């Protein structure tokens, strides 16, 4: 194999107990581009978010006299984590174990934290917002990537808990992705860091990473839709097909007036049920059994109609494409801030981006090697 075609594994390989260590889905390395595209997507959206919604309204949401004044949140939030409560728990641990309720003093407190907790000076907060934007820019181009990811996560968390009321589910997705990026070698590909390493001869071959972070993000994606679907299934409006009609009539959210573009009720009803079925069944739609089932059916001669077999084989892909269309529909009809772009970031690692570079041999190389070989 040529040197340029060699697979170079970047990052720490997690130890898993048997049988998980044999599970290829969890252990088989993937091209680093899958993580790189997530990094680029998140950093780009975050940068726009900071520049468009945080910096212009900094005085409104942060600092003394603002809607996120520190003294305001001290009155609303539960008491924060403290050493005293923890020490008290440690002292009384034997008694608490006997009663079956350990660390209840510490656990009854909020563990939220912010590096900017008591900062009231708007100039300092604005400087931090600028630092946050710069870190997002570094993360985007992949310069000092790990450090930039760390700064992005620290400031994401810090601003999140300064004025938590202004965030939505999209921001929640951002916190999660930022955490994972900080813990992974997200600058292993498509970054200035990787380019510089290659120029200096310290990185040769195709970069691959261990897939655990992508698997966790996929499970997170599944849980987002599935739990949302289960909540929806318990509601009257979703079961009766009315939800989308009322959502489109919501004057607080919609991008334009329902009176301007009245959508036929039967259409909103059909779409409501489609979303409900898609979300409730999401774990089923994206599970890998469909291709296996299609093969079995084909094997026993049930290969007609061909289209049905194709749909069966591609059920996960169809479900994911529906998800993208669903989010684009939301972006078109509703003003939910950066919810849609952050959610779409979760789809980015599912794209076979390494194929766009015509480097199919990377995948072949990965498949040709055993997991044992990577640790050597």
């Amino acid at each position, binding site marked *: 194999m040529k040197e340029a075609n060699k697979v170079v594994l970047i990052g*720490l*390989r*997690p*130890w*898993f*107990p048997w049988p*998980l260590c044999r599970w290829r889905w969890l252990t088989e390395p993937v091209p680093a581009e899958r993580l790189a595209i997530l990094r680029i997507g998140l950093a780009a959206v975050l940068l726009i978010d900071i520049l468009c919604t945080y910096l212009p*309204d900094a005085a*409104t*949401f942060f600092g003394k*006299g*603002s*809607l996120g004044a520190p003294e*305001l949140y001290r009155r*609303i939030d539960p008491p924060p984590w403290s050493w005293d409560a923890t020490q008290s728990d440690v002292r009384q641990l034997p008694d608490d174990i006997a009663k079956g309720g350990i660390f209840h003093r510490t*656990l009854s407190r909020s*563990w939220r934290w912010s590096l900017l907790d008591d900062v009231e000076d708007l100039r300092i907060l604005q400087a931090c917002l600028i630092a946050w934007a710069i870190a997002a820019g570094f993360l985007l181009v992949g310069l000092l990537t790990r450090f930039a990811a760390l700064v992005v*996560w620290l400031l*994401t968390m810090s601003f*999140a808990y300064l004025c938590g*009321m*202004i*965030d*939505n589910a999209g921001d*929640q997705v951002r*916190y*999660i992705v*930022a*955490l994972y990026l900080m813990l992974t070698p997200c600058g292993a590909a498509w970054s200035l860091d990787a380019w510089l390493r290659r120029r200096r001869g310290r990185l040769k071959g195709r970069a691959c990473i261990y897939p*655990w972070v992508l698997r*966790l993000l996929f*499970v997170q994606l599944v*849980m*987002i*839709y599935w*739990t*949302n679907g289960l*909540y*929806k299934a*318990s*509601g009257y*409006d*979703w079961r009766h097909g009315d939800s989308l*009609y*009322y*959502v489109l*009539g*919501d*004057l*607080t959210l*919609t*991008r*334009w*007036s329902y*009176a*301007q573009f009245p959508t036929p009720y039967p259409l909103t009803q059909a779409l409501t049920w489609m979303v409900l079925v898609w979300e409730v069944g999401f774990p089923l739609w994206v599970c890998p059994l469909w291709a296996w089932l299609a093969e079995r059916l084909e094997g026993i001669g049930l290969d007609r109609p061909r289209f049905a077999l194709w749909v069966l084989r591609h059920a996960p892909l169809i479900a994911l494409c529906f998800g993208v269309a669903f989010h684009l529909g939301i972006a078109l009809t509703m*003003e*939910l*801030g950066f*919810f849609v772009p952050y959610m779409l970031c979760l789809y980015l690692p599912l794209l076979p981006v390494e194929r766009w570079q015509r480097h199919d041999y990377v995948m072949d190389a990965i498949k040709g090697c055993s997991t044992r070989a990577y640790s050597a």
Partner: protein
Amino acid sequence: MNAMPRLRRLAYWLLRAGLGLFVLWQFVFLLGLNLCQVGHHYVDNVTGVGEAFPSLAAEDAAARQDPAKFEQITTRWTELTGQEQSWELFAPDVWYDIPFVAVEFRWQATPDGARSAAGLIAALAASQQLQTASAWLAAAPPAPVYLLSDNEPRDIHHYFRVGKFRLRRLEGHLDLDFYVPPDKSAEDMKDQWRQRVFERVRAQAAVMRAYLEWRWTRYHLQHPDRDTPKQIILYVRLYRVPPPGASPWTWEGPEVRPIARWRPHVRYVPGRPQVEVYDLIAGRFDVME
């Protein structure tokens, strides 16, 4: 690897084990917390589930203790790492009532009738026609100023919205709806609504106060000649989406209801809510205990 000093190798293996345990914990946490929350919701809110699982129905049931403990621990983990897991967009139900907040600045401490009376007395006291008008104007406080939320479309039948979603999120913590179930009338619901207004104001008094201060500061920057008003009132403006198929089709409303008031010249008792709540039944603002 063989050349690696023993200590370094141990550290490497510990790191690998730590990462592996973190990944496994994340799987347990993601599945566990989300399913606990959904299960909790079903047992408490969905008719029939509590009856089907009587051992889970009571809040203090033994079978609920372990999931509750797990939920408590994982919730702390979400707070520490920023992985909140409440995925309830437009679920379980959507809203029929669409609330916006609005504020009013009033420069008179007394009701409108007294304001008119003050103006009338001043007018009567004046001897000439021209003086009458100017005396009335001088004695009467400025007319109230009523300001809509930046998020409320000025024409609900024609608008295009971009931005301001963070402010909307914050205002969403202040407003509330006044839902009327199909089998009840507004009159039947009044007591319940009153209770809800009290609960909302008690829970969000600090934010309401900050919001009212912020609205006044913003207005004052544009109108520096204005004195501090005697009262700043927070209203909810409610539009109602008509049922499907309604003809002619349009939103009902807005119904405008006051919910809280801040009097900038009044010193509120420290430690108590720094705004007053509107009592829908008595028709007046009350200081909260």
